[in-house]
């Protein structure tokens, strides 16, 4: 395994702000403790990214008021919401499986919120119709949810949440219930709607692609704590935990740098382009790895490790090889190359990586 351990959370500096979201969510539930600071400016889309069971949904429920806070605080546009019941919070939620009311038409589902917030029946319906129109669903207003497709239901759910004009929009795995084809299309639409949304949007997902495409900023949560926070490109380039590294498809190691050499705890060394000192992360993509059956001579690569094939997996027209030995490495190669090398589990191989392909940054 790599030497990477979850870094201590390094939240961005936050003070009391009078617009947008300023929250520190602490929820104790038996042995599980969620402790997530979260801030966002109006117009910003923040994704809570993390593996299943990390506490993302709990954080979302706490924001919505469906789970009580055990500690911390929750302010939205300068207003304390800790003790406000869910129905009085200016918060809209798109649930994972949408939870459209099955006995109401699409129009009445969307009109439900405005009605509850005091609009008359006719006015609520007019507003609902406008929202459905914006979502491109004007022709489906009289349809019951069970007759909507997954993508349509998702848009009705979004319209329903937006129709109450929330100051905080929460989306729980907004694309998880969709099949791959619909997902692509809905993701693009959702991105457009979120871009138009002028208040804070927080979405929860375990899918890095959804998070990267939809969010301006990612907050990575593991075991109830924030392990990393930053822009999608920032996080993709500088993963700080195995989980993120795997999500973004990088080999990640933690060690101590002295000049161009990073010594890992296992004793192996990696030569890097950057010149650093002290604790660092080193990352390189699987595609940067070249495999050889015999010890290469005359390779310009500065890193050479003797490894063994642990497993092989086909990804499209590529083969992902998991290596053990000097250090655990994921390597991508073409099927042709794999056949030529006669790779099979247990086979000894030499792996080379150019120093310029690695990326080191302070831990």
């Amino acid at each position, binding site marked *: 395994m790599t030497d990477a351990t979850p870094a201590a959370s390094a939240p961005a500096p936050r003070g009391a702000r009078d617009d947008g979201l300023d929250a520190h969510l602490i929820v104790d539930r038996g042995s599980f403790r969620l402790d997530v600071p979260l801030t966002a400016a109006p117009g910003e889309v923040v994704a809570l990214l993390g593996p299943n069971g990390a506490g993302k949904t709990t954080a979302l429920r706490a924001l919505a008021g469906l789970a009580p806070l055990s500690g911390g605080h929750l302010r939205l546009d300068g207003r304390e919401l800790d003790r406000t019941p869910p129905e009085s919070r200016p918060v809209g939620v798109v649930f994972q499986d949408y939870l459209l009311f099955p006995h109401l038409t699409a129009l009445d589902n969307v009109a439900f919120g405005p009605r*509850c917030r005091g609009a008359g029946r006719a006015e609520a319906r007019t507003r609902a119709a406008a929202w459905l129109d914006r979502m491109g669903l004007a022709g489906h207003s009289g349809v019951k949810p069970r007759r909507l497709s997954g993508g349509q239901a998702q848009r009705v759910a979004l319209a329903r949440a937006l129709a109450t004009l929330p100051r905080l929009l929460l989306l729980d795995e907004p694309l998880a219930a969709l099949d791959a084809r619909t997902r692509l299309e809905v993701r693009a639409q959702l991105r457009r709607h979120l871009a138009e949304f002028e208040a804070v949007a927080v979405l929860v997902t375990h899918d890095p692609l959804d998070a990267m495409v939809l969010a301006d900023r990612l907050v990575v949560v593991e075991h109830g704590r924030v392990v990393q926070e930053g822009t999608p490109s920032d996080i993709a380039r500088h993963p700080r935990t195995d989980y993120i590294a795997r999500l973004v498809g990088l080999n990640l190691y933690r060690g101590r740098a002295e000049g161009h050499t990073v010594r890992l705890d296992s004793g192996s060394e990696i030569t890097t382009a950057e010149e650093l000192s002290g604790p660092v992360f080193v990352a390189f993509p699987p595609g940067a790895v070249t495999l050889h059956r015999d010890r290469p001579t005359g390779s310009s690569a500065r890193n050479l490790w003797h490894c063994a094939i642990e497993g092989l997996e086909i990804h499209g027209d590529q083969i992902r090889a998991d290596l053990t030995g000097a250090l655990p490495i994921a390597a991508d190669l073409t099927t042709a190359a794999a056949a030529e090398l006669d790779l099979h589990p247990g086979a000894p191989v030499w792996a080379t990586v150019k120093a310029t392909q690695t990326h080191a940054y302070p831990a």
Partner: protein
Amino acid sequence: MTPPRPTGTATVLPGGPRRGRPRTGVPLPLLLPALAGLAFLVLPLAALLVRAPWSSLPEQLTSPEVWQALRLSLVCATSATALSLVVGVPLAWLLARTDFPGRGLVRALVTLPLVLPPVVGGVALLLALGRNGIVGRWLDAWFGVTLPFTTAGVILAETFVAMPFLVITVEGTLRAADRRYEEAAQTLGASRFTAFRRVTLPLIAPGVAAGAVLAWARALGEFGATITFAGNFPGRTQTMPLAVYLALQNDPAAAIALSLVLLAVSVAVLAGLRDRWTNAS
């Protein structure tokens, strides 16, 4: 061995020798007890039909007393069902959706009227709501209301016996229903009550209807608690079951005739309602 077939039905039982179709039907160990159970339930009703005094039936059924008792039965059973709905559905919600100390005990208390002999229920109602009862004496003193020997008393007695059926059915439906719809409604600005009224209630409507029909049927057949609490006076507290019981004392033929009327009306109502929900859902 061939499975016995109910006579007089045109249904071909699955599993019969029908052109070599695979035997996908009802397994015999289920079919036989099921038919035995059906026969056991239907046989007494059949006996009632066989022994009915058909020749004197028209005469029996034209007596105003019969219609008076039937009308009273329907009015009281329907009122008792309405009363059960008004207080029973919230009670079921409380049992299904909230957590309070002693909830298990409360649930046991709610089901108590199911196991209590109705006559005992009637006595208990007298001790509670009678003219001299622990609450009834104050009703009498403050409002001049006495419940025994009144139609209201019949409705209360029937409600006491019938409401547990509704509460249990609705509670079960509520437990099976997805609570997250209520949460979704709350995030849209609905108070818990609005969420219940506009989302939960429509979602559990079939369960509420089933509970109401059970309660109605139970109330319609109620005898023991009614006669004990409300007495027996034609047109005021004499429902069909009371009329049947008293007719049985010296005119069994009349009793059978009355029973048939009650039976026919309840079958008509129940069958009608059942069709309506199955079509609706």
